[in-house]
């Protein structure tokens, strides 16, 4: 299989596309961080974005989640045009994300961090914010139950009331994911979730990701750890120097000459 200009078929007939982006471009001064990238994430799939350091993966994620505004290009999530929507509005349409550099509320406890993710779901009449009536109490209780459940799912129930900043690095990563899940997303974008984790922690992460997919969540994983990607991803997109390089199944990616070249004989096994 040779590297070709024509894009491979990326819409398997049995899956709808959840997130479609076309022609995304982003420059920072002289650096063209993302150059004309298009992608289509099938619903219910695990879509991985890989590439060497500085390839533009995080920038791409920031564009998709709305933190950066693209210089050009479009993004559509399940029929809703996202272009121009600020980050917080996209969350309401079902996009959640974690960050490469962990951004937890360090002084709040683990459970308080997760509870913060429920805010978009609150269904309380305005006056009940002042006089805490029944709807308020119901929401309050439900939130905390849900948060506890998510913490347990990520294996953090023992840490629920400790300040997030005091958790170990691996635990903090899990907590960030739990918090993002609290927003009940349709698409969860995870930025380098395995960074800094030891093998055991990576395995736990893997398990969780597979369970999430089993429950119907679509995931987009930006990752450096090829092992994780190969085990978990349905489709893999490779980018380098901000440009699209190749997309296919993990097996196709592994054997693609251009991809191997990009990594310069590094990590691929």
């Amino acid at each position, binding site marked *: 299989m040779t590297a070709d200009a024509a894009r491979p078929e990326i819409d398997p007939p049995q899956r709808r596309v959840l997130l479609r982006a076309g022609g995304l471009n982003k420059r*920072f001064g002289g650096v063209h961080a993302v150059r004309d990238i298009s992608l289509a994430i099938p619903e219910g799939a695990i879509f991985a974005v890989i590439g060497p350091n500085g390839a533009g993966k*995080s920038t791409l994620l*920031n564009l998709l989640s709305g*933190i*950066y505004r693209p210089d050009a290009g479009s993004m559509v999530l399940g029929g809703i045009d996202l272009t121009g929507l600020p980050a917080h509005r996209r969350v309401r349409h079902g996009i959640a994300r974690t*960050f*490469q*550099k962990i951004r937890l509320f360090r002084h709040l406890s683990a459970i308080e961090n997760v509870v913060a993710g429920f805010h978009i779901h609150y269904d309380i009449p305005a006056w009940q914010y002042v006089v805490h009536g029944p709807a308020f109490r119901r929401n309050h209780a439900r939130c905390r139950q849900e948060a506890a459940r998510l913490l347990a799912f990520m294996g953090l129930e023992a840490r629920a009331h400790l300040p997030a900043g005091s958790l170990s690095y691996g635990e903090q990563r899990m907590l960030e994911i739990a918090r993002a899940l609290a927003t009940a997303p349709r698409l969860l974008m995870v930025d380098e979730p395995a960074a800094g984790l030891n093998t055991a922690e990576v395995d736990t992460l893997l398990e969780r990701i597979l369970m999430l997919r089993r429950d119907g969540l679509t995931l987009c994983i930006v990752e450096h750890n090829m092992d994780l990607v190969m085990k978990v991803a349905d489709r893999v997109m490779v980018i380098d120097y901000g440009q699209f390089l190749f997309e296919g199944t993990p097996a196709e990616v592994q054997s693609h000459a251009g991809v191997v070249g990009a990594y310069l004989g590094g990590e691929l096994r």
Partner: protein
Amino acid sequence: MTIILQQGINGVVLGSLYVLVALGLTLIYGVLVQINFAHADIVTLGAFSAYFFMHGVGGGYLASIGVSLIVGGALGWLMNTAIFAPLQGKGSELLPLIATIGVSVTMENAMLAWFGPIPYAFDSPYSNEVFRFGGTFITAQNALIVAVSAVTIGLLYAFMKFTFLGKALRAVAQDRETAGLMGINPNQLVMLTFVIASALAGMAGAMLGPVLVLTPFAGTSVIVKAFAIVIIGGFGNFEGAILAGLLVGLIESFTTQYLGPGMIDIVVFALLLMMLAIRPTGLIAEKREENV
């Protein structure tokens, strides 16, 4: 026409002083991303130390400028050591600003208690000499201000652009951690920045003394405009501060002429708020996307 020219000259004089003060703030913000609210009071103390050097000790005016430079630098060293260095990286990034607000309030009111509210007559030997061109004039003091400011700014600019230390400073401003990895000691550089910036402020005070009213609150009248300048010029932006400083000086002199001195603050701040609404990154926009 001569009125316009005259106000133009006055504007440049004022502007030069404002630039000296604003540059100090800009430098500090550039390396630390912090504001020293007590910067104004360094200006005031610089003025008072020059005053007492001249009228108390009998020193010359030009020498008193040197004294104020030293006093300013010393205060800068003190403030960095006592406040900015210990709070580096600790807690909310607003804490140093709040601490310096405390320092500023303390200094002003201590000076008020010590020196009293009655303005001091700070006469420089140059206040009375006047140069005339056509229908306009400029006092020797004002000419001195412009000359000293221009030279200082020029030297500073050359320092930042061409010397190793200057480049190191800019490196720390852009990325403190990496600069540290490159063998530059960011803490020392931050200290150096503080000393330079505060020395500039002290010197501005010495030159301001004869021009403005010397009370413990002399610095405050300048600082509020200096903040406006820093924002209008773009925080951390050297060239922007110079441009904006001259602009504000000119605005002030023309406002005084045509609208009355009471309107100065309103006009300057209205301009500031307008800038914030339209172009928050300042005149010379340097869009810094937050590194996520």
